């Protein structure tokens, strides 16, 4: 007998959400425990791969809010990652090394820029929208290439930020900072996609005309989702800059946005965990496909893209729902109310 109309506590909501997103939390748990594996096998550089996966997955999750849930095929999100990364670099350049400040500035600039680009781009739809977001991203790319003060084409090196008393150069400190931010972002997204806002956003993707006919203004929802996704990408960029200790305009080249999309589709479009799963698959492929080629065709080891390109075409032509779709297809389904949302 349920209590009518009493709002569930936040804890209760959180637990319910975690249960509905088991794949997501399994992956997050895996990342938390992974350093143990690297310690056992004494391969610290594996942590680097894991950090890259977490950051890339975070950015892809951000884009997925706009793309997978909102239906906005934005080709410009790498620009926001770049802005997040350059926030650290530029602040460093002017002597501002406080990590909190980096995050605040990165989020503020991405929110502002996301708002402007979003408003301008969302005046259009379909192919126009894709092209316009692509063009804006390239504009920012060229801007940073031409800013000689901040390294221009060559980029600039970065010191890891100061976070209160945490020294990010100590092993695993940065790892768990990234992990913690990932958990926060994932939780946030987990709540959003089931919230009234999220459900309306998905409704807009499903049939924008009907949502309008319900008395809502789809543009407000789309812009909000776009800005949130831009901010998340900015956060990912800030963390990435700390990890790589270097930033260059390449981080915001339009092909990076393409990579984000590949990751999303590899993992499964309209799920929260999908992009994280996709990031795992993508980066592991990037690491090991050249190795495989070394074994079979050493002369062509550098050209692993030759497999990846057609692989992508094949996945698009024949695969639907990505890898997380495959997983949920073969898991037992509960009743309608408890449908898996991963």
């Amino acid at each position, binding site marked *: 007998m*349920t209590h*009518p*109309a009493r*709002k569930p506590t*936040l804890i209760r*909501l959180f637990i*319910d*959400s975690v249960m509905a997103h088991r794949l997501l939390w399994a992956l997050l748990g895996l990342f938390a425990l992974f350093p143990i594996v690297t310690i056992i096998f004494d391969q610290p550089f594996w942590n680097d791969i894991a950090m890259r996966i977490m950051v890339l997955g975070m950015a892809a999750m951000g884009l997925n809010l706009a793309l997978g849930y909102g239906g906005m095929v934005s080709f410009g999100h790498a620009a926001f990652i770049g802005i997040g990364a350059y926030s650290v670099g530029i602040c460093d350049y002017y002597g501002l090394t406080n990590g909190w400040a980096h995050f605040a500035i990165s989020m503020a600039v991405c929110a502002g820029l996301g708002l402007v680009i979003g408003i301008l781009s969302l005046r259009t739809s379909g192919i126009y929208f894709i092209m316009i977001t692509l063009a804006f991203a390239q504009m920012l790319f060229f801007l940073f290439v031409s800013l000689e003060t901040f390294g221009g084409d060559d980029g600039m090196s970065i010191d890891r930020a100061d976070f209160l008393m945490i020294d990010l150069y100590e092993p695993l400190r940065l790892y768990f900072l990234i992990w913690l931010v990932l958990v926060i972002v994932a939780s946030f997204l987990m*709540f*959003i996609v*089931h*919230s*009234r*806002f*999220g*459900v*309306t956003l*998905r*409704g807009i*993707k*499903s*049939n924008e*005309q*009907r*949502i*309008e*006919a*319900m*008395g*809502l*203004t*789809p543009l*407000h*929802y789309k812009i909000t989702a776009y800005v949130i996704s831009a901010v998340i990408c900015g956060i990912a960029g800030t963390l990435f800059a700390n990890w790589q200790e270097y930033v260059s305009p390449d981080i915001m080249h339009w092909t990076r946005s393409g990579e984000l999309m590949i990751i999303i589709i590899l993992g499964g479009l309209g799920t929260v965990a999908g992009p994280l799963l996709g990031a795992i698959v993508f980066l592991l492929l990037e690491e090991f496909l050249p190795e495989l080629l070394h074994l079979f065709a050493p002369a062509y080891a550098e050209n692993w893209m030759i497999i990846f390109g057609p692989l992508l075409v094949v996945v698009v032509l024949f695969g639907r729902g990505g890898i997380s779709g495959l997983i949920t297809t073969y898991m037992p389904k509960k009743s*309608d*109310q408890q449908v898996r949302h991963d």
Partner: protein
Amino acid sequence: MTSPVLELRGLNKSFGALRATHDVSLAVMPGQLHALIGPNGAGKTTLIQQIYGAMPPDSGSILLNGRDITALKPAARVRAGIGRSFQISNVLMDFTVLENGIIAEQARQRAAFTFLQPAFTDPSLIAGAKIILDRVGLLARANQRVANLSHGERRMLELALAMAASPSLLLLDEPMAGAGPEDSRRMTEIIGALHKDVAILLIEHDMDAVFTLADHITVLVEGAVIAAGTATEISANDDVKTAYLGGDPQ
């Protein structure tokens, strides 16, 4: 003298040389079921688009409950009290019937912009959604995915969503389009029951439904009103007979 729910005053719309709407005026009174009929190409859809706000008229004004809404966008008009069903069902295919109702209910409550509380398990939204679905008898199909519904059921859902915000005016654009005889009969019943609470402007080709339901009929031919009156008056009107020769096979 009661004031009309919807009033069109001298609406005009041209596409180049084509006059799609020619000085159209009409009024829909409270509780009235007002049918808009005319041969194909008469400009009925264009007129509905202008009333809904998807297309601006070249001149003329549109009043809803005495308020001039000519400059308002569709979403604002819906909030002002217009509900619309589309000729081709605009239901949310990727969700269940109940979820469609919930999304409509939270829009009705003007409370769709929250980020934390889940929507589909919210008791107040579910309760409101059930009311919406019950109006058209779709409650039994609440957990069915809309993609699995029959065509007739989707038209019902379309109608339910149009009614969701308890509008003062319902714009029904060919609700029976593509419906078989059984579904048409049910739809006619439901619309008939609905129109006690809400004024309806109905575009339909199904003449049985029109003559059963309509309190008042306006006939549109080539963008202009050629006749308006009760069902009896219209069926006796020579101009209408000429324009509509043979009636409509339905």
